[in-house]
């Protein structure tokens, strides 16, 4: 009796030989897996590209938006300095977003803001900046996310606003919370806010942000930043996973690839049985099966990474697109590492005798 088995290099060559022996099938599976890996990134890039175009359009119109927020603590700060920017030279519009409150809670007595519910039927998200003087707020952060709109969009307020379908997407928001948008155009602010947005004419932006900093000098923890067109979905694989839609895309991609590979390998039970009756140990037979699926998934992951990099360069929005490319690559690599053990299933499902009586289809 002996324990002889395949030389590792010959086993590796056998993996590639098997894949090369069925070029059409291998190519078809590879294409399917690449598509599955790339599809979520295509959607993300398309979305990012839309944002980029929107911001580009705004820039072309000469507007620059500054966000004031207390990022570290999330604590509130006075609205008054923010709202007072309305009507100043070089300012297109200024607005603020108040603290979330429960839907059932009534407005505090003496609150001089007009509280405009961000949900319901009286808001409209504008695709471009309103003309100066038009009542409107710039959306960003959580509110934009909950409304399902892009950061930098404009929320029109006023008597002639129309419904927004996305606002009714209950899955996107905490049903116990309703956000109140403080409309600076019609009232004098007297309460605290979480974020302030001031849109300047581009030529006035640099001086404007200095003025804003001076207005909030008493609040050193505040941050002042220009809005950049990237969503929280695309900053890292971890944050992408935290996003519900992105998470579903990842899971769907994994399932599709798994099903394809299971079908591929189920049709090869007979051949894997042949390896065993010619003396190949079960472990090496499993390595063969896993090696074939691993080769396909890693080739697909590499293809997805190359595609994502090319798409990122072509997209032109390097910051956002490269993050999407990173996500696509990370997703493909993760799935590529997780799925190949499925290659073991044909060995587990049937005994050798039955496997050998089947014919390869």
């Amino acid at each position: 009796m002996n324990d002889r088995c395949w030389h590792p290099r010959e086993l590796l060559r056998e993996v590639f030989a098997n894949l090369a022996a069925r070029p059409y099938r291998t190519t078809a599976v590879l294409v399917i897996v690449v598509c599955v890996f790339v599809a979520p990134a295509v959607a993300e890039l398309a979305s990012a590209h839309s944002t980029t175009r929107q911001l580009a359009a705004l820039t072309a119109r000469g507007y620059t938006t500054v966000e004031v927020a207390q990022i570290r603590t999330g604590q509130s700060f006075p609205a008054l300095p923010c709202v007072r920017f309305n009507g100043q030279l070089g300012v297109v519009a200024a607005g603020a977003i108040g603290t979330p409150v429960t839907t059932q809670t009534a407005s505090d007595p003496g609150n001089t803001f007009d509280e405009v519910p961000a949900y319901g039927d009286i808001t409209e998200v504008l695709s471009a900046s309103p003309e100066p003087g038009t009542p409107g707020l710039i959306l960003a952060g959580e509110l934009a996310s909950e409304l399902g709109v892009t950061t930098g969009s404009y929320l029109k307020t006023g008597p002639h606003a129309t419904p927004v379908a996305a606002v009714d997407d209950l899955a996107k928001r905490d049903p116990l919370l309703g956000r109140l948008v403080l409309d600076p155009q019609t009232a004098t602010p007297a309460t605290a806010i979480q974020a302030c947005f001031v849109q300047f004419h581009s030529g006035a932006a640099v001086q404007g942000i200095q003025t804003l900093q001076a207005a909030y000098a008493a609040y050193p923890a505040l941050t002042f930043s220009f809005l950049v067109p990237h969503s929280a979905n695309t900053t890292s694989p971890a944050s992408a996973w935290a996003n519900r839609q992105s998470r579903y895309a990842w899971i769907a991609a994994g399932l599709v690839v798994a099903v394809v590979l299971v079908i591929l390998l189920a049709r090869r039970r007979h051949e894997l049985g042949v390896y065993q009756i010619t003396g190949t140990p079960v472990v090496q037979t499993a390595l063969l099966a896993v090696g074939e699926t691993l080769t396909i998934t890693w080739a697909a992951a590499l293809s997805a990474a190359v595609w994502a990099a090319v798409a990122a360069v072509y997209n032109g929005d390097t910051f956002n697109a490269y993050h999407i490319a990173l996500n696509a690559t990370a997703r493909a690599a993760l799935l590529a590492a997780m799925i190949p053990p499925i290659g073991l299933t044909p060995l587990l499902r049937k005994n050798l005798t039955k496997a050998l009586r089947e014919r390869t289809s």
Partner: protein
Amino acid sequence: MSDPEQVDAIKAEHVSHVYDRRIGPVIADVDATFGFGTLVALWGPSGSGKSTLLSLIGLLMAPTSGTVTVAGQPAWTSSADTRRLRASMFAWVLQNSACLESRSALDNVAMGPLAEGARRHDATRRALQALEVVGLTERAASKAVELSGGELQRMTVARALAADKRIVLADEPTGQLDAKSSAMVADALRTLAEAGRCVIVATHDQAVSDRCDDVIPVAANPTQP
């Protein structure tokens, strides 16, 4: 370890096997001994249990009762030892010509040596020698799927030859072949036995049994419906 030259290749004692208790045993209390250097036929009609007996002595299935000893070593004492015995001692020639259909005949035959740890050039050399013995040298580069039934069976015989396993089990190797192809396969099996291997053939082909050193009749269990 027992000396393989001094022991029987396979010894089956009181071997029985039951697939379904309601139907009863397919193989009942079989005793048989097979030596090295012999070509033995398990002879019987379809459904008599030849393939089952072959699977039992080839360690593809454990018998419901009884013992199987291979080259002096009792089988099924542990699953790991059984797997090692199965991998190291047995080569198979199956009725459906179990092979990698998309690979060449040469690749298929070279599998045996490769599975024993041989490098590609050595495995290829041994495979070409084996293909020459069964008269398939000119078809070495052809894909298995392109071979005729007879060529396929001879290819699997060549695989057994190249693998250098000491026991060759053939399950109805000529079941789907014409007389001429059957004779060629039987001759190839004879060659394996003459090289010192124990060759056991489950068959109901007279042309094959005529070339065997011994014929063991396998009758359907009379207790079965």
